[in-house]
């Protein structure tokens, strides 16, 4: 064994130890929902159940079913609409960047602002606006509010992914008399599908996990989304009971499964926010 190999092994061990620390919360969430209520309140959080039961899931499911469906009704259209229109805007900014740099720079700054602004800061006018348009406490109102922030987010991400297409392809298409619409659907869109998926999955996970918007924009229990519904099972100040673990699992299962299956797209989206389209 040479010294380089030993160094690699040491690095791997350090990495694995840190990763185990990182995984502790996930692990404790997954195991505790399978405990009986007595065991959950009496045994350490880090210990696996002695008696394996799904009773808490059965209890929680009744109340989580509707919010789960609501979240699907909200998050899928938000992700899809945001990404399609966001990509169109990104394409517009891209083609105008040379002739009207002021327009595309302002546009890019505004979509960055909408992406990263603490959205809670729009609370009061947003509620006023939704109330006056009759959107408060409705599916449309939630979708509308999320689109305000996530359509610019999608436009921002797509503005980072689109420049990967060589400009000469778009120029060639123009010389071939393709309209903007044709260039977008026949050339730009097919060539940015990985970026499109990354953006859509990113927006989907973000809007699924958004706790604030449904908290302030809905009042009736039938419109509850998953993150808000889950909070009903917390019992305040760290009270332990098996139902809250099960609720947490049900709330996280969709984004977690998406993350496990399509995680590379989500990571690609995150990476784009920080390092351009090259990614890791």
């Amino acid at each position, binding site marked *: 064994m040479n010294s380089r190999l030993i160094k690699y092994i040491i690095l791997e061990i350090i990495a694995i130890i840190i990763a185990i620390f990182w995984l502790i919360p996930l692990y404790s969430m997954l195991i505790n929902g399978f405990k009986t209520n007595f065991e959950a309140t009496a045994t350490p959080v880090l210990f696996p159940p002695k008696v394996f039961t799904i009773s808490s899931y059965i209890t929680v499911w009744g109340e989580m079913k509707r919010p789960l469906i609501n979240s699907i009704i909200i998050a899928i259209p938000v992700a899809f609409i945001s990404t399609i229109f966001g990509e169109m805007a990104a394409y517009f900014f891209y083609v105008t960047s040379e*002739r009207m740099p002021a327009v595309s720079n302002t546009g890019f700054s505004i979509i960055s602002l909408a992406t990263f602004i603490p959205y809670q800061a729009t609370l009061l006018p947003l509620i006023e606006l939704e109330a006056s348009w009759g959107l408060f406490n409705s599916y449309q109102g939630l979708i509308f509010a999320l689109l305000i922030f996530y359509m610019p987010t999608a436009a921002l991400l797509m503005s980072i992914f689109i420049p990967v297409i*060589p400009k*000469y*392809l778009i*120029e*060639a*298409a*123009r*010389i*071939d*008399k*393709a*309209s903007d619409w*044709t260039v977008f659907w*026949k*050339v730009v869109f*097919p*060539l940015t599908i990985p970026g499109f998926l990354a953006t859509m999955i990113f927006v989907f996970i973000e809007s699924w996990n958004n706790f604030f918007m449904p908290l302030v924009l809905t009042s009736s229990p039938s419109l509850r989304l998953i993150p808000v519904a889950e909070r009903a099972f917390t019992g305040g100040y760290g009270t332990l009971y098996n139902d809250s673990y099960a609720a947490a699992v049900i709330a996280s299962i969709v984004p977690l499964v998406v993350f496990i299956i399509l995680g590379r797209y989500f990571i690609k989206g995150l990476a784009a926010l920080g390092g351009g389209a090259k990614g890791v």
Partner: protein
Amino acid sequence: MVKVKVKDLTKIFKKGKNIVVANDKISLEVDDGATFGILGESGGGKTTLLRQIAGLEIPTDGYIYFDEKVVSAPNKIIVEPENRNISLVFQNWALYPNMTIYDNIAFPLKNIKMPKSEIDKRVTEISETLNIKQVLKHYPREVSGGQMQRAALARALVKNPKLLLLDEPFSNLDAQIRDSARALVRKIQKELSLTTIIVSHDPADIFSIAEDAGVIVRGKFVQIGNVSELYNNPISETVSKLLGDINTVEGEVKEKAIVIGNLAIPFDKKIDLTEVKVGIRPEDMRISQAEIIKNYVNIGKVKVKVSSYSAGIFKLIVSPISDESIEFSVNSETHIRSGIEAFLFIRPEKMKLFDSNGNRIM
């Protein structure tokens, strides 16, 4: 077809604090059906000129006319590229990677809403001419470089453009198939008498395609003319080098001769300079053990330093026996071993003289 006229065209790029004058008051005329070559070093502004003619860049100043009609004006595109009836073959061909070769060629026709049967007829016809019928169903990444280049050409020609623009169209091809590609372009251009402008850094492209050409150096046309005129009578050392291999060696002007080390080129004209640069192309020189060759002048003894071979010709590097730091590149019909000493011959009427700034004096 169309006649292209460019008048005092200027293009300035600002990149941060840097200001680059890519084109500086360029004027040029290409007659209907003619072919024109633009030659220059990379970064010299030739692609910028072509892109302005295509309408892809906005001129900073100056005008472009198609048949006396203004298409570009200062800071303004009057006729958008899609309405100029032009075709542009890009250096890397710009084939749409998500479409088959067939769809690539059909794309411009679909955009003008041509009926399907007509599109099919035209694509089949052009792909037969260009010998790519067998790859129509493939994607660009699945075909060879030569086929990609012909597909790009097919896409350019299928819509019957009035003006064909070629931007270094052969530079990404293997050397062996470049000549046949050039011949094909030339043949089609002639058959259609299609006005054509080609940009290249390779004089071989210009010689094979263009009748007239202009040489761009640092954004300006320094010489425009018939291609063989440019080759034989370059106005400067730079132009002479852009048009082909040439030896330029410093020599001392003495009475009745220009002296380079132990070599002496007979010269009896009066000039004011004591130092000149002698320019002579490899094909105008020979090397031999014999002391006399008809039509050539023996200028003295040299030693062969390197002997190599390319495209059917032996290439020699020789130095005057008195000074190894001076080098000439000479063509030879036979292989000569390095180390051998022999006589160097030149054709005196082909010799060009430049001053120390590289301007032609004779």
